[in-house]
């Protein structure tokens, strides 16, 4: 229905909108004028799904609003007492901004609030959120913002992320766990880091993630919350101090968690299980080890739509919210079996009511207005021991043999760069083996995990590599493990006709493959692959322009959705060093500007070594 037909009360109203982390002003046709007349901040224009009164009935409507960020809105509400003549909802939020602590004051205000002040609709448009619930969320949002403000966070949170942090903070304050199940690419890690960084006194935190993500976690904590002490607990030399200072973030892997009893001896403040599908099997040793850890609150993070897989949901909530879903057999008996076997709507409703307070999931579509058309994410992967050994050997051998001068030097440097990039990709590529499995390359493992998650979500991905051999290894492995049919690889060795066919199938066929691998060279101009919402750069060309052109196969005019661009980088290696130089726009000029290989060939031995040597700190 066009907005002109929305029946408005004719006086300026105020309603807190949790998922926008903002106050909405609404209720009059000339919104800008009314907001100005009231001396309120103008914020940004938008629409909200709100309930309105219409000819004796209350009904759902899409209402034009001005949205003002929580911070600005509360300051404005605090700055002035409401003059007589303001609407009841506006007066109610004036009061809410001054609400003293305690349940009694909140309940009393909730009682006085008119429905318009909490007119936020549910998804179905059949009900509005209860006043006490909305006030509680408002208070949580204010608390979380205060906590964030007194902590150094080097990031600007999007509104839905602020809401996520408020939610996580509130869960933890209640001593209750939860599942953060935002779709991949929405910044779950950042939200979790904000939670960890704002809790500095109660005890140390433990982050458990797949081995391939350890480097990424360490990097992200250092980047977003540089004041937060970090201990990586992984690898043969792993060690924990006798007492871990409160607020310290200990990062470990599921592998270590499974083997190590020391972790269960510590009383943690916040536990974070990243990629929590890892504990979806309650009989597995790792799940039992996870359940044994003691903490104030446990948060699971997963990008897969876990609410649709009941056994997985039970297993994860068993760790984050023990007892919520009862014993496993009882859960199966009362809820899972009725839902799965006879599609019971009552059991589904019960489950939803049980789980909803403990699970937060937003999709890209939910928060589209907050997202840019292209979103970049660098994923730092962990080197395996095998990779580290091969890498050191290759560097050592090359420098021992020497590079010579002139054209010969250039050739030898390029050969070494290629070797190192192959080792980062997968030892199998470097050693020219016919198959690549998991467990040998951090990057390969991470890529496979991410792709499986995206496929689970029903989305499509373009994966670029510059190596034919790597593309073949990936295609072979993904075809064998994903269960999504043959995964095609588009490269220069195919006839133009065959390439067209691959593109057509990916872009148009109803049963087209969820992943298309492409050789960076073969993916020239003109390919239109907008069906993909994700782009992955498996290895680096180090020429931003070339990579951007590849990315734009998916992001073209006509693409309605946000495209998430995942760049994989192996931590501590030349991939990492060069990525950092490019990011920070410093270092050797040509490295930064694009002709990286040639630039590296012109460096002195000493300079070259500084770029290529493995950073021991980055290898677990």
């Amino acid at each position: 229905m066009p907005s002109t037909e929305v029946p408005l009360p004719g006086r300026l109203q105020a309603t807190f909108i949790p998922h926008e982390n903002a106050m909405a002003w609404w209720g009059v046709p000339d919104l800008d004028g009314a907001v100005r007349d009231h001396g309120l901040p103008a914020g940004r224009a938008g629409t909200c799904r709100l309930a309105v009164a219409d000819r004796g009935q209350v009904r759902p409507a899409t209402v034009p609003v001005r949205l003002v960020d929580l911070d600005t809105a509360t300051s404005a509400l605090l700055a002035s007492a409401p003059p007589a003549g303001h609407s009841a909802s506006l007066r109610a939020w004036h009061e809410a901004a001054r609400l003293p602590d305690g349940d009694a004051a909140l309940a009393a205000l909730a009682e006085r609030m008119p429905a318009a002040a909490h007119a936020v609709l549910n998804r179905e448009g059949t009900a509005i959120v209860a006043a006490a619930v909305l006030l509680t969320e408002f208070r949580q949002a204010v608390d979380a913002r205060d906590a964030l403000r007194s902590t150094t966070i080097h990031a600007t949170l999007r509104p839905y992320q602020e809401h996520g942090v408020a939610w996580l903070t509130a869960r933890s304050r209640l001593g209750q766990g939860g599942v953060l199940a935002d779709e991949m690419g929405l910044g779950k890690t950042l939200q979790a880091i904000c939670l960890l960084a704002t809790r500095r006194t109660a005890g140390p935190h433990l982050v458990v993630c797949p081995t391939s993500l350890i480097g990424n976690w360490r990097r992200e904590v250092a980047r977003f919350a540089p004041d937060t002490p970090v201990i990586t607990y992984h690898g043969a030399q792993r060690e924990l101090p006798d007492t871990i200072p409160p607020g310290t973030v200990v990062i470990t892997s599921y592998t270590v968690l499974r083997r190590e009893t020391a972790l269960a001896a510590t009383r943690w403040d916040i536990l974070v299980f990243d990629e929590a599908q890892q504990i979806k099997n309650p009989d597995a040793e790792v799940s039992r080890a996870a359940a044994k850890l003691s903490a104030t609150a446990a948060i699971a993070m997963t990008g897969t739509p876990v609410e649709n897989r009941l056994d997985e949901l039970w297993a994860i909530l068993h760790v984050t919210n023990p007892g919520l879903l009862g014993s496993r057999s009882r859960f199966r008996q009362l809820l899972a079996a009725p839902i799965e076997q006879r599609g019971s709507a009552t059991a589904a409703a019960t489950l939803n009511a049980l789980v909803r307070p403990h699970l937060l999931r937003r999709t890209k579509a939910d928060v589209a207005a907050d997202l840019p058309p292209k979103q970049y994410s660098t994923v730092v992967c962990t080197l395996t021991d095998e990779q580290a050994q091969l890498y050191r050997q290759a560097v050592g051998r090359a420098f021992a043999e020497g590079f010579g001068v002139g054209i010969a030097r250039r050739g030898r440097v390029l050969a070494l760069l290629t070797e190192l990039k192959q080792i980062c990709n997968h030892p199998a590529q470097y050693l020219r083996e016919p198959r690549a499995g998991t467990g040998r390359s951090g990057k390969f493992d991470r890529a496979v995990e991410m792709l499986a998650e995206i496929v689970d979500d029903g989305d499509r991905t373009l994966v670029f590599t510059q190596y034919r051999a790597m593309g073949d290894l990936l295609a072979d492995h993904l075809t064998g493990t994903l269960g999504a049919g043959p995964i095609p690889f588009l490269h220069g060795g195919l006839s133009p006709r065959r390439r067209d066919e691959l593109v057509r199938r990916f872009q148009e066929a109803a049963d087209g493959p969820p992943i298309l691998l492409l050789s960076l060279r073969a993916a020239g101009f003109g390919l239109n692959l907008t069906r993909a919402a994700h782009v992955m750069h498996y290895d680096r060309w180090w020429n931003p322009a070339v990579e951007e052109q590849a990315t734009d196969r998916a992001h073209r005019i006509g693409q309605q959705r946000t495209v998430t661009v995942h760049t994989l980088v192996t931590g501590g290696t030349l991939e990492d060093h060069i990525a950092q130089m490019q990011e920070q726009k410093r270092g050797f000029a040509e490295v930064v500007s694009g002709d990286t290989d040639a630039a590296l060939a012109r460096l002195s031995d000493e300079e070259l070594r500084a770029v290529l040597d493995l950073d021991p700190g980055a290898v677990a």
Partner: protein
Amino acid sequence: MIPAEFGSTPWGRAWVRVVGATAAAGPNALLPKARSLARNHAVELTTEPGRIEARVTVSGAVQPVRVEVPMWSRQTRAEVRLLLEKSAAEQPGLIAGDLSDTVEADLRRKGIAIAAGLDDLDAECACRGRKRPCVHILATLYALAQLIDERPALAVELRGGAAEAVDPPSRWVALTALDAATFYGD
């Protein structure tokens, strides 16, 4: 193990037995048909203490069914309440709406019936079938058993007992519960 389709918990099973009693003297041909109706979502059911109401759809025609269930005496209700409180203290890890199966065993030991026998039920259906209970009433009771299997507390509530102290405050307020005249408060 796959739980039984009807009566996967002892709470629901008590009601399945009531239906099964109609086949005590010989096979009851209506039972498979009644199960099929319940299985295929042909029964819309609402309950309140002492009363079940259902709309059973058979080949497009809707049959309203009403079943009055005798409530427990005040004394029985108090006994049940004590048992439930004791069980809740001993087994805190139950899903909301679940009741421990040990309580069912305690009730049986004390001779308190969860379900009422067919003779004690006052069941009405406007269908013209001569056989009573008719297929609609039987389907209603099967559907009831499934609802109770999902939420055992319903078995107690139906007999007038209070299985849960207080429902937590609801997150949502239905639009139909709102008054348009006071919606804006002034």
